[in-house]
């Protein structure tokens, strides 16, 4: 099992004033693998996601990304245009609030097609065709392609954001609480969608969630964070069914079974 990682972080540290957000965090992600970062609010999980994806710089430590050609790049040493290009093509980022990544004044189809155009696609007909195909992939009716996102429900907006993210066939997707703030029935639909797409397209993903059931459903491995430290990590079902660290035992035992 010495095949190369897609993303590796070593010794990440970051403090916000007196508050430790990341303390000596290491992380590895292999191609096609889903890694969940769990922990309560303020544990540093979203900070870790932002640092892994190059959106926020650590005070020390390094994040390596393996490019399709096999070479390693230091995410935080890359020139800004190269990092932006990475975010437009190889990577995707699904925000908890879809309004953070969608353009609310541009049609649904335009939101999806825009990422293709940013990659260099110029043929209007094929862009529109891909946009419609991706809308149906995320179960948005093709008749809505010219509608503005502001006429969409919260669940539809989240699915539109996923279509916009996946249209460029990224190798790696970062997801920040993708089902947070949605009704449970909408959550189930979205989770099923993410689960199917990630498995079928072989996408690697780093997923931040406070919901252990989401981690169990989607992730191969899980990292448990508390006060900026990774207190436990391993196989998802092993960590959830046989938690070792006091904090993980607390998290697991605090979940209400419906």
């Amino acid at each position: 099992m010495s095949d190369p990682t897609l993303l590796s972080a070593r010794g990440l540290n970051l403090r916000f004033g007196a508050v430790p957000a990341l303390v000596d965090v290491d992380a590895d992600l292999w191609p096609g693998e889903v890694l969940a970062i769990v922990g309560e609010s303020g544990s540093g999980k979203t900070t870790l996601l932002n640092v892994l994806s190059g959106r926020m710089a650590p005070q020390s430590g390094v994040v390596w990304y393996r490019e399709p050609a096999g070479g390693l790049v230091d995410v935080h040493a890359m020139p800004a245009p190269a990092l932006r290009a990475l975010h437009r093509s190889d990577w995707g980022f699904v925000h908890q609030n879809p309004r953070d990544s969608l353009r609310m004044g541009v049609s649904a189809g335009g939101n999806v097609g825009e990422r293709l155009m940013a990659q260099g696609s110029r043929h209007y007909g094929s862009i529109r065709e891909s946009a419609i195909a991706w809308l149906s992939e995320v179960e948005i009716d093709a008749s809505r392609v010219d509608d503005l996102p502001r006429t969409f429900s919260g669940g539809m907006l989240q699915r539109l954001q996923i279509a916009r993210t996946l249209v460029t066939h990224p190798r790696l997707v970062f997801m920040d609480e993708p089902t947070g703030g949605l009704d449970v029935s909408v959550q189930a639909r979205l989770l099923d969608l993410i689960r199917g797409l990630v498995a079928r397209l072989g996408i690697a993903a780093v997923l931040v969630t406070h919901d252990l059931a989401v981690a169990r459903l989607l992730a191969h491995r899980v990292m448990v964070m508390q006060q900026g430290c990774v207190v436990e990590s391993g196989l998802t079902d092993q960590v959830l069914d046989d938690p070792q660290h006091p904090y993980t035992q607390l998290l697991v035992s605090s979940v209400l079974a419906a």
Partner: protein
Amino acid sequence: MIAIETHALSKQFLLHLQGGVRIPVLRDVAFSVSFGECVALTGPSGAGKTTLLRSLYGNYRVGSGALLVRHQGAMVDLATASPREIVSVRRDTLGYVSQFLRVVPRVSALDIVAEAARGVTLAEARAKATALLLRLHIPARLHGLPPATFSGGEQQRINLARGFIGEHPILLLDEPTASLDAARRDIVIAMIREAVDRGTAVVGIFHDAVVRDAVSNRSHPVLPLQDAA
């Protein structure tokens, strides 16, 4: 040929939230199963049968000792294997039927079974899943429905179909017939026997003596630790 063997396998639970109480469950377990053999784990409730079975699947962490599983021709120690190695062992080597089906919202019974198939196309997996479900008396009208609302016996049979469809070289069964009537139970007995005849190594917990006698070649007693001491 040995499929699984353990050496001095021990496991205890340390409950931090209950004042750090330690519950030893397995101590110095020496267990083995060969291909083409079915071993029944026996012993009273609470003795640690499920803990042993879950450890064999890598669901529980091994405390100390070795837990060797033959995977792709070599013995892998699940006590020290990386998470990714365990994922690989489960994909290619270990099948597991838990006591209860974990329902995934919106996914149909057919797809829950079909997605556990190995090395076949989606269409082949669905055909195989359909045949297995029908064999287990799950009528075709239910195949397209998510099993959340199914009865306990129906859910258990879907779980069985999911466990058997992959035809893994090693199969772990936790009470596979607990919620089944006699007719359905006999179908499961036949399926376990066929798997053993194909050369599968089976480890199971069977409270039902009829099932245990019908499928197992031998028993491995698991005793509560205070009694064993």
